[in-house]
């Protein structure tokens, strides 16, 4: 009975996500233009690396293929659109629609997350397809010895990284209850993710102090699955996973605490 009621509770979020996915699927122009944007960015960036590696087979023991696959993983993370959750929450707070949703028997944050993931489904699928095609064409097969253990490690880092992103960006969205506009907070956080996640320069090239920050700060931990394409991944894995787990707990606690406080300071003006 308990399980059944829990499943029924979850069903409404699933339905909300499904409706958002169906709604966004009709916007072909957005899907197409997103694909073009990703393709142009990846081809440009990969061309730069082809140029840089032209006269040498490897730099600091890293091959061109390793570098491109690591950068490609940042694109995978970016295409999930998980970072836009903060904007949805901030917009609801700004225009006051959060008040209406809070009166409904749903958890507002979970609902926002599900709606965003639904809205992003088709864009994500299409950009992933484009990214994977460009990656295979320009970087060749992934430079790893595939094994069941490697796959489990890669997927677990991907899962917890995704979870950490969901929580962190929701937390930034919640700050809009206190700040007029959380955009500046987001800019700084987002650009830290861009640097520590290895968007243009893969983490493997970083100096030791920056590598340490990329490992132990949440902005880097979100995309640590990109490091699965380097030689020292097996030895790094436990540290990377531990960092993700710690930050998941910390961020979740912060998000729950902030959300409780936010609900208390919410002023309802009616309308």
């Amino acid at each position, binding site marked *: 009975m308990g399980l059944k009621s829990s499943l029924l509770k979850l069903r409404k979020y699933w339905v909300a996500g499904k409706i958002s996915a169906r709604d966004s699927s009709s*916007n072909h*122009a*957005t899907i197409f*233009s*997103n694909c*073009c*944007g990703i393709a*142009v*960015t990846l*081809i*440009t*960036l990969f*061309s*730069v690396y082809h*140029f*840089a590696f032209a006269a040498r087979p490897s*730099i*600091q023991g890293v091959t061109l293929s390793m570098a491109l696959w690591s950068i490609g993983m940042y694109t995978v993370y970016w295409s999930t659109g998980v970072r836009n959750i903060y904007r949805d929450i901030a917009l609801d707070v700004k225009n006051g629609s959060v008040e209406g949703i809070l009166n409904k028997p749903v958890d507002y944050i979970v609902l926002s997350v599900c709606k965003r993931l639904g809205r992003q489904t088709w864009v994500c699928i299409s950009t992933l397809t484009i990214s994977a095609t460009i990656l295979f064409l320009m970087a060749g097969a992934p430079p790893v010895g595939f094994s069941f253990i490697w796959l489990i490690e890669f997927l677990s880092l991907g899962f917890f990284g995704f979870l950490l992103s969901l929580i962190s960006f929701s937390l930034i969205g919640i700050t809009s209850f206190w700040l*007029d*506009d959380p*955009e*500046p*907070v987001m*800019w*700084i956080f*987002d*650009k*830290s993710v*861009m*640097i520590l996640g290895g*968007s*243009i*320069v893969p983490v493997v*090239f*970083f100096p030791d102090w*920056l590598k340490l920050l990329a490992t132990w700060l949440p902005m880097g931990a979100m995309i640590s699955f990109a490091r699965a394409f380097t030689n020292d991944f097996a030895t790094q894995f436990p540290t990377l996973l531990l960092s993700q787990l710690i930050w998941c707990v910390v961020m979740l606690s912060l998000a729950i605490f902030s959300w409780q406080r936010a609900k208390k300071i919410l002023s309802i003006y009616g309308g």
Partner: protein
Amino acid sequence: MIAEFNVAHIIWLTNLRAAMEFRVAFVMQIVGMMINDCAFLALWILFFQIMGNVNGWGGQQIFALLGMNLMCYGFAFGFAGGSLWMPRYVEQGTFDSFLLSPRNLYIRTIASHFDLAGLGDAILGVILIIVYAVMTGSALSLVWFAALLPATTILFLSVSVICSTAAFYLPDSNHTMMAMFKTFMNPAVYPSALFPKVARFVFIFIIPSLTVGGLPVEAVMSHSFLTLGLVWLIAAIWLLISIAVFYGSVRRYESGNFVGLRG
């Protein structure tokens, strides 16, 4: 035309004063954007530290490239951010008020919005260009940048207007417009010397990303009047295209019967 720019000037001042009313948000937006932009600088400096100079480009050129891009972006959207807001105007029906205005529709629309963060971009852009001039010991390069800036800003605005006209053809076009504009903007922050020949042609003439970033820097580095002329020519052509596309698209606009007042 001078009267049109006078009106635009009044709108800018009004918007600036309105933005300055919330002082904390005002400072946060400008400083936040400057810190945000420094991320690109840090990344490219790191890139060139690892890779060394690639095809004649290194850390110095990145200062010039980002400086140019930021100034373009800052001046274009700081003072004429209305181009990016056009999809919202069309969707909400507030575009009616621009149509009813006796002023020039093109200028009135693009000057309608003041992007505060753009001011942060512009300030950092100017700082980076000055740093570049100090590093290279060439005060003349400042004159070159000043000669190129109006052209690249016009080009930036023209492309954003063309992308925004998607609002007249597609429903819910804001995301589409942003994705189209990012397709143009992303290659602009990459060193132009690293593009193969075909890609260079595409990104100079068809999607003019390099014309706002890499090409002006090349013109400054080589003091090439030919490149300077080319940048101005491309900007003029894109401006004409954007005016034609804009007025052609406006014909498709259907009023939403929105009633309201605008300042």
